[in-house]
């Protein structure tokens, strides 16, 4: 283990950026229409439950990477493949988010640029960040967070100052019944983005103040959940449930409604900057986590990490390019198939078994 350290504030920053990362694009539960905010709040509750589980597991195996803890709980024979699977899962998630952003850029600001080129450029920066380490990524987050909050604040401020949100867009509450809400909470709402907090189980060993770690992560998750809900409510009240559901990038549609006396208008860059910034942290963290996990599992020496970053980057580019043929397919897979068949096992089922086995082992050890 290297002697890189991040402090609580940096952890909080990373959680905020990570949770907001691609959520603005695809994770706002806008499919639930009017009741998306209820869906998000319930999902947040579920996410907090999951996070408590991850934190419990970490408290039993402190100062260990999640992948190492898996091996320790399940033994080398069963644990090693599962740990490896987790690293691949993180990398796959990274590739998925990267693809989200590639498509976002293609449909918003870079119409003619090939997907390959935008994704490659993004990957170069991400690889650079991963090579420099978590300390540097965390500090970069620290520098960008005030700016991101400022721009996000401007976005909210202008939208509300224009009087764009219409309350009748979210009324009547629970019009479509509880089944609509439940279908959106599970599996999609809980697992994405809140269940993805499992990524931070790989980063907890780097945090300096281990005692306050749970408080910080829960607080970070809670705050980011509230921000996501606020944004979601804003979008639905501004655009109306059906437009919000069908729009490709609802956040951009919302901000483009802002026009203050022909003086403050075209605020799209604010949103694009915000999206790319948060997206960078999300992909960088996923990539980094998979990088340190694989580095540890494959026991790659530290002085070869540069070459290994390049290999992983090439893998990331390839996966995100061949993942799906077009944006529609990509989002459909991302919202319908991935949560149920990938997120649920990796975020809920396996950790559940890990915790159960760990409890049994503890009991056995006592006896």
């Amino acid at each position, binding site marked *: 283990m290297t002697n890189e350290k991040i402090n609580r504030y940096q952890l909080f920053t990373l959680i905020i950026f990570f949770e907001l990362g691609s959520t603005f694009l695809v994770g706002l539960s806008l499919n639930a229409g009017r009741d998306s905010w209820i869906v998000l709040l319930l999902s947040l509750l579920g996410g907090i439950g999951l996070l408590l589980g991850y934190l419990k597991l970490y408290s039993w195996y402190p100062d260990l990477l999640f992948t190492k803890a898996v091996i320790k709980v399940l033994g080398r024979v069963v644990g090693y493949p599962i740990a490896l699977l987790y690293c691949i899962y993180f990398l796959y998630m990274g590739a998925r988010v990267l693809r989200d952003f590639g498509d976002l850029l293609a449909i918003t*600001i870079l119409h003619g640029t090939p997907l390959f080129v935008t994704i490659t450029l993004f990957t170069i920066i991400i690889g650079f960040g991963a090579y420099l380490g978590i300390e540097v990524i965390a500090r970069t987050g620290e520098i960008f967070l005030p700016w991101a909050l400022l721009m996000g604040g401007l976005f909210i401020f202008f939208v509300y100052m224009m009087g764009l949100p219409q309350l009748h867009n979210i009324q009547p509450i629970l019009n479509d019944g509880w089944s609509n809400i439940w279908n959106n909470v599970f599996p999609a709402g809980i697992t994405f983005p809140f269940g993805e907090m499992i990524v931070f189980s790989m980063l907890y060993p780097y945090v300096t103040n281990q005692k306050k770690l749970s408080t910080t992560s829960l607080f970070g998750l809670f705050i980011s959940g509230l921000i996501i809900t606020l944004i979601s409510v804003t979008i639905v009240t501004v655009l109306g449930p059906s437009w919000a559901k069908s729009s490709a990038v609802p956040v951009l549609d919302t901000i483009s409604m802002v026009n203050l006396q022909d003086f403050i208008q075209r605020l799209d860059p604010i949103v*694009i900057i915000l999206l790319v910034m948060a997206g960078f942290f999300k992909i960088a963290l996923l990539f980094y986590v998979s990088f340190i996990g694989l580095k540890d599992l494959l026991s790659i020496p530290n002085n070869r990490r540069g070459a290994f970053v390049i290999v992983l980057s090439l893998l990331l580019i390839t996966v995100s390019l061949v993942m799906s043929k077009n944006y529609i397919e990509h989002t459909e897979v991302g919202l319908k198939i991935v949560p149920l068949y990938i997120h649920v096992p990796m975020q809920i089922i396996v950790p559940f078994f890990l915790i159960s086995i760990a409890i049994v082992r503890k009991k056995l050890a006592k006896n």
Partner: protein
Amino acid sequence: MFKWKKLFQKKEHSEQGKESVPYLYNALQKNMDYIKQTLGGSTDVVFRNFHAGEDGSIKLGLIFTDGLVKDDFIHDYILKTLMSEIRETTFKHSVTKHNSNFDLLRKYALTNAEMEVIEEMDKVFNHLLSGKTILLLDDCSKAFSIDSRGWEARKVEEPSSQAVVRGPKEGFTETLRTNTALLRRRIKDPNLWIKSKPIGTKTQTDVAVAYMNGIASDEIVKEVYKRLNKIDVDSILDSGYIEELIQDETYSPFPTVYNTERPDSIAAGLLEGRIAIIVDGSPFVLLVPALFIQFFQSAEDYYQRADFATLVRIIRYLSFFLALLTPSAYIALTTYHQEMIPTSLLISLSSQREGVPFPAFVEALIMELTFEILREAGVRLPKAVGSAISIVGALVLGQAAVEAGLVSSAMVIVVSLTAISSFVSPSFNFAISIRMLRFGFMVLAATFGLYGILLGVIAMVLHLTSLRSFGVPYMSPMAPYVKSDQKDVILRFPRWGLFSRPRLINQTNIIREDTSKPEPTSTKRKFFKRKGRKKK
């Protein structure tokens, strides 16, 4: 990789010529001859044989380098004393008591404050060539080295860089002693420690390290000495050499060592716990550890009122971003994101660009390069020709280029804004890094638009946060965030608010002052007077 290593491998020093003599001979003439021969008969070194004592029994030899010594001093206090004044006194008694002429001269005859006895031949040359006078005796293998240094030097003048409207106008000079004296004048504290050692096998340049003992972190002081001791070069002609040899990261556009001509800036840095490196022959004194924010702080910030200083500082940060990003943002907006420009502005811009035959990137590149060429020419040109260049630059390149339809006038505005903004930074070497990065951002903007600029900024911040200066994170106190140090980053708190020294740079002696907020005491406001801070 292997070949590179071989290529850059250190070659063994090969000293040519005859074998060197480690110690002085016992005979005067032999010594004089040897020294003369080693110096190759250089004409600026003066050799003088003379006799002293009652009956001229003591044979003496005087050697000094003409131009590096005070002539009057040698005439009056060495030659005159030895040749005429002592002759009149009888030494019989003393000679018997002190059985050698050497002790006799040292104790009774040489009326100089700074004097040293040397035996090694190396030292003889070293002292002789640094302006000391060497006095040799016959039948004696020791020599006197008398400090008679004094040469033509530049006076203490107003520094040419980092000028201020309000504040001290003294600047460092090329002489090490003058520079240390300028620091001593400001800090009269026994804890200001100044230690020096010669660096450079040929130039033997004195390099002094100054720091406040007890305030500067011991670890950083140790690190500075470690890096200085590692240096093995033949010449140090300016503090730039030292800077390049001790800096943390060579492959970075950002400077991790601060340099200034202002003694007050250095004194302030020392009192914050930083370490100054003064190099003989250079008016630029180095200060480490240097942080990113330091390049936005000017000495004047602390001499003007706090509110004004804060405003000026915000302008500096703003101009940093303007200098870095204006051309690239213009390129990105006009080539990729026309929909983001308000309609009326877009119409005005596109009507200007109608007749321009180049894409915005080429246009910007031409203008930026032209400006850089003009600037470089302006620096090197003699003063008399300088004004001609500015006329050519302003009239011909600005106005005529627009009138000829080669560039749009909006581009001229962009380039001028960039150029002016890049000179706002109080540190010249920081402005250079901005100028270098600007071209990179222009290329990114031309290929990827706003997205490219954004990724460029992220990469730049990643690089910045990975930098360290002597162990201190370069972007502190912004990242890692240090709450107590925010008082001197973007805002400049009033003086009573700057009560603690920056953390990370110094960990022990943190409290700087204990002044409470100044308030009129006679009014009833005194009831709300702040409590004084507790000293640690």
